[in-house]
């Protein structure tokens, strides 16, 4: 942001910023939704997280320069995701107190596989073989991403999907550049390992 104390932006600057914000949100919303979904594995929760992140960005940083928006948005998105997990944890604690049902530790693995199955069933396949291959590969990639440790997934998606550089990724994640490199490297190796084990060829 430009320095010089409390100078109010001119009307032209405000309007330009509004358009930039609008364009930015329109451009990032699908990826943001997917990112949130890979983390929480719940469509409604992912939408809520993206909505919360958009609102916070608009309320708190409406006149920030366009180049700062991606980093700010990603930071807010991750905080919103973390808040979701915190709330879920509290809710689950209370649920467990009053419930004697489930859960086994390996349920997550089954959930991923069931989700993969259901995703494949939901989408009608128009062109047989190539379409099937593409969908299966995509499903495998998404499942592998969901299985990555959260910080590795964040670093990988910010660096390689959002195409942030190491410094921007570090700022968005609130960690050092060294940690970003480590997370990214581990994420790539983990993904390659998981996809290789499933026979997926990119």
């Amino acid at each position, binding site marked *: 942001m430009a320095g010089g104390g409390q100078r109010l932006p001119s009307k032209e600057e405000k309007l330009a910023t*509004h358009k930039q914000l609008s364009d930015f*949100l329109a451009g990032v*919303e699908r990826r943001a939704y997917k990112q949130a979904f890979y983390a929480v594995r719940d469509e409604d929760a992912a*939408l809520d997280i993206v909505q919360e992140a958009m609102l916070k960005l608009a309320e708190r940083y*409406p006149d920030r320069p366009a180049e700062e928006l991606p980093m700010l948005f990603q930071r807010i998105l991750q905080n919103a995701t973390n808040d979701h997990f915190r709330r879920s944890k509290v809710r689950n604690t209370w649920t467990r107190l009053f419930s004697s049902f489930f859960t086994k530790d390996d349920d997550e693995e089954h959930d991923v596989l069931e989700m993969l199955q259901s995703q494949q069933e939901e989408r009608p396949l128009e062109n047989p073989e190539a379409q099937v291959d593409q969908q299966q590969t995509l499903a495998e990639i998404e499942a592998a991403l969901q299985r990555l440790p959260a910080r590795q997934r964040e670093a990988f998606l910010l660096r*390689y999907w959002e195409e942030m550089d190491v410094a921007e990724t570090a700022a968005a994640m609130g960690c050092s550049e060294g940690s970003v490199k480590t997370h990214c490297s581990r994420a790539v190796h983990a*993904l390659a390992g998981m996809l290789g084990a499933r026979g997926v060829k990119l």
Partner: protein
Amino acid sequence: MNEKEFSEKIRDRLNVATQQIDGITLNRLEQARQRALGKVRAAERPAAVASHRNGTLALHLGGGDGEHPHHTRMLFIGLSLLALLAGAFYWQQANDDDDEQGLLDAKMLSSELPLHAFVHPDFKEWVNSSH
């Protein structure tokens, strides 16, 4: 395949995934975006006393939709204070006039001259000749 090539292939696949998001989800995303942008528009028409711009106090009035109760309240308090100061000044002025009139009345009443002497047509001439 190195790390960069691998990541690019994953990125391409993920971009395909974003094109497959269903219409309902896309609608909800658009609604969320419009809601967020609506917040910005609301913030752009403040009913507020803005801060200094090149040394001048800029006053922005608008909205009237109760979205900025803090700024409206500040404006109301400022105007009230101004009215209070103006009233106090007027009251002080009126009191000063009363004091002067009172002093004059007291001197006239305590004078050795009868009251009607002060309004006699030749009173001024008599005062001048007596000095």
